């Protein structure tokens, strides 16, 4: 592929900002664990401003910028065409980076300690919400470019199968558009008017319902690039093939279609939605475990093919033959381990009747650090290592150091999150700066608290090493290009439903109306008493 079509500039510009801010947020994470364990003087405003910044950077900035940069890269390299509308793409970057900086100014100066979920009627400085809005608007421009790009390619290649990497990237763009509508409506029609003083009160039940619309599928937006890497890059890098291209598409579609209308599992403990609606969303939540189980099967199966092609024998003999020296393959192994542990925890959270035991305890923080900070981020790292030579033109200076970094991330995440699960079961509330409760209630917590600090320290080391590995360059000039995995049976033609999104858009629209129509409308059908805004 010629350098003209490779979007190196766009990919690097997005990913560098993502990874630099990621390193800053990791340092904030270390500050937080130290304060929680009461090893440094406690400072309320400092802690909550830090958690807001750490959460917003990890959850919104790292993800959105990485996903956009990676998306431009996979789109251009899998379709073998230039990214269209470069101006729009760069405008998106400016909006995303500008919005992030604007929001960061208010978070870091203690004017927005409302946490990254900013539940009203707690209200931050309006600049924080405007920054967040610009980030989302910028990301919509990325969505536009991805969808247009897929349309142009299909027009130029009628009847051809859209490569799996692009199919995944484009469906993620579509997912993100649907996902972000909930929070966009909340922020634009409720929160910004409140923060500006245009209205005096806010319907908190409505705001939380709209936020839940976004809060679940956003995790699939974060997760899909990890899955795209697992399906389209890892099998080849490990020396084998993907088991089934069609099944991968079905898994992506199921994640998007089942993943959207199920946000009420975040509202199980909220009094303003009735039982039946919660149960309906619970059913979808359980069904969305199916594509994840399929992914587990396919990825492990593809690794097995690789191990056997490389001479592995016996039931488990293939495992040692997989080419684990490739950072992206090693990352995949760790990702699957963390996904398995975290997946079991997730089933407990999702259970209509079990959620009560863990809701809003430190268990939840442990759960999402394991899946999101663990599985998702380690795949971002693996993907970055894999494509870096192609976008920078230089091999990594040391594969061994990349592997060390991934080992540290895996060990650190386990050391941080397993104690958190234990603390949660003992009732420790999440989002607390430290534990000023009666001694009798907290005396059993301290071992876990110190393990948490150890885990945090290992993770920060790993985060810094990651950025160092990418920045140092120094390897020999690279000629290697990205190679997408071939399926055992590469499809030559596909039904429209597995090659485009029209049908799925309609199904999503209908299911969102069913899942959210009445629950949103009810706030106009009963007398509600809306609170005024409160500072933090």
């Amino acid at each position, binding site marked *: 592929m010629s350098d003209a079509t490779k979007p190196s500039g766009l990919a690097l510009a997005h990913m560098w900002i993502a990874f630099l801010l990621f390193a800053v947020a990791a340092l904030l994470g270390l500050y937080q664990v130290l304060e929680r364990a009461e090893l440094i003087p406690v400072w309320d405003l400092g802690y909550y401003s830090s958690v807001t910044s750490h959460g917003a950077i990890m959850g919104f900035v790292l993800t959105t910028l990485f996903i956009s940069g990676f998306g431009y890269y996979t789109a251009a390299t899998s379709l073998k065409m230039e990214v269209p509308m470069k101006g729009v793409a760069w405008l998106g970057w400016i909006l995303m980076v500008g919005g992030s900086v604007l929001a960061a100014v208010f978070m870091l100066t203690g004017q927005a300690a409302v946490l990254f979920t900013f539940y009203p*009627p*707690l209200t931050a400085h309006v600049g924080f919400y405007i920054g967040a809005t610009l980030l989302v608007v910028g990301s919509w421009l990325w969505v536009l470019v991805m969808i247009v790009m897929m349309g142009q390619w299909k027009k130029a290649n009628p009847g051809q199968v859209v490569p799996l990497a692009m199919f995944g990237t484009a469906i993620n763009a579509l997912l993100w558009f649907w996902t972000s509508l909930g929070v966009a409506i909340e922020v634009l029609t409720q929160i910004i008017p409140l923060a500006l003083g245009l209205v005096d009160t806010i319907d908190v039940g409505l705001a939380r319902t709209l936020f839940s619309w976004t809060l679940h599928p956003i995790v699939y937006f974060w997760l899909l690039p990890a899955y795209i890497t697992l399906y389209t890059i890892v099998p080849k890098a490990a020396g084998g093939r993907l088991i*089934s291209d069609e*099944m991968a598409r079905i898994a992506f579609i199921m994640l998007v279609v089942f993943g959207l209308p199920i946000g009420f599992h975040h509202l199980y403990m909220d009094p303003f939605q009735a039982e039946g609606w919660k149960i309906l969303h619970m059913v979808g939540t359980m069904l969305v475990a199916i594509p994840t189980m399929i992914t587990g*099967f396919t990825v492990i199966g593809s690794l097995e093919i690789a191990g056997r092609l490389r001479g592995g024998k016996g039931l488990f003999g293939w495992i040692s033959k997989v080419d684990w020296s490739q950072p992206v393959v090693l990352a995949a192994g760790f990702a699957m381990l963390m996904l398995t542990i975290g997946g079991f925890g997730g089933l407990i959270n999702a259970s209509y009747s079990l959620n009560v035991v863990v809701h809003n305890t430190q268990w939840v923080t442990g759960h999402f650090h394991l899946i999101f900070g663990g599985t998702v981020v380690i795949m971002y790292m693996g993907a970055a290592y894999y494509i870096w030579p192609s976008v920078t033109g230089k091999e990594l200076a040391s594969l061994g150091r990349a592997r060390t970094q991934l080992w540290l991330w895996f060990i650190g995440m386990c050391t941080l999150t397993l104690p958190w699960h234990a603390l949660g079961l003992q009732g420790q*509330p999440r989002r607390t700066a430290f534990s000023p409760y009666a001694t009798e209630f907290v005396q059993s917590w301290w071992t876990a608290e110190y393990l948490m600090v150890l885990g945090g320290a290992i993770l920060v080391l790993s985060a810094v090493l990651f950025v160092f590995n990418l920045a140092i360059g120094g390897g020999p000039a690279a000629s290697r290009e990205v190679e997408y995995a071939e399926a055992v049976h590469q499809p030559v033609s596909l039904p429209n439903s597995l090659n485009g999104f029209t049908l799925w858009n309609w199904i999503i629209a209908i299911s969102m109306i069913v899942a959210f129509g009445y629950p949103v409308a009810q706030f106009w059908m009963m*007398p509600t008493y809306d609170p005024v805004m409160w500072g*933090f």
Partner: protein
Amino acid sequence: MHVDPLEKTWVWLASAIAVTFVVVLIWAAVARGIHPPSNVETIDSASLHLSEEFAEDNLGVHRQPDGSLKVVMVATRYGFYPQHIEVPANTPINFRIATTDVLHGFHVEGTNLATMVIPGFISEVNLAEGFKTTGTKPMFCNEYCGLGHHYMWSRVTITDKAS
């Protein structure tokens, strides 16, 4: 379509697992009556003190004619009031709570007594069999409610039913 036969088997198995979970959870909800707080009841948080139910004098534990308990509490930055309640074990509890200001989360560890407390709404939890063990437990606020969130907690003492 090329789907590996083994993979096809796995898809069916995975679906069966998911459906089993759904069936068990719905059974627990319907047959055993295990539901999270879902009462959809509104109230004006700004004038809780003027309401009959949540007026200061009416907060706390009330014994009902049928022997069960009604517990009424208010969440406000940074505490749950009354700050210390005492209830007998193995006695059904109807628990109701509302907030005067922002969101809070209410949780008694290891029990089903937990709920979000949302401005404008009343939260209700029914413990059909009450608490099973005796002792003093903390009631932590577990939703961020402001810079003093970690100071927000109260106590419940569960006594032997006989005494």
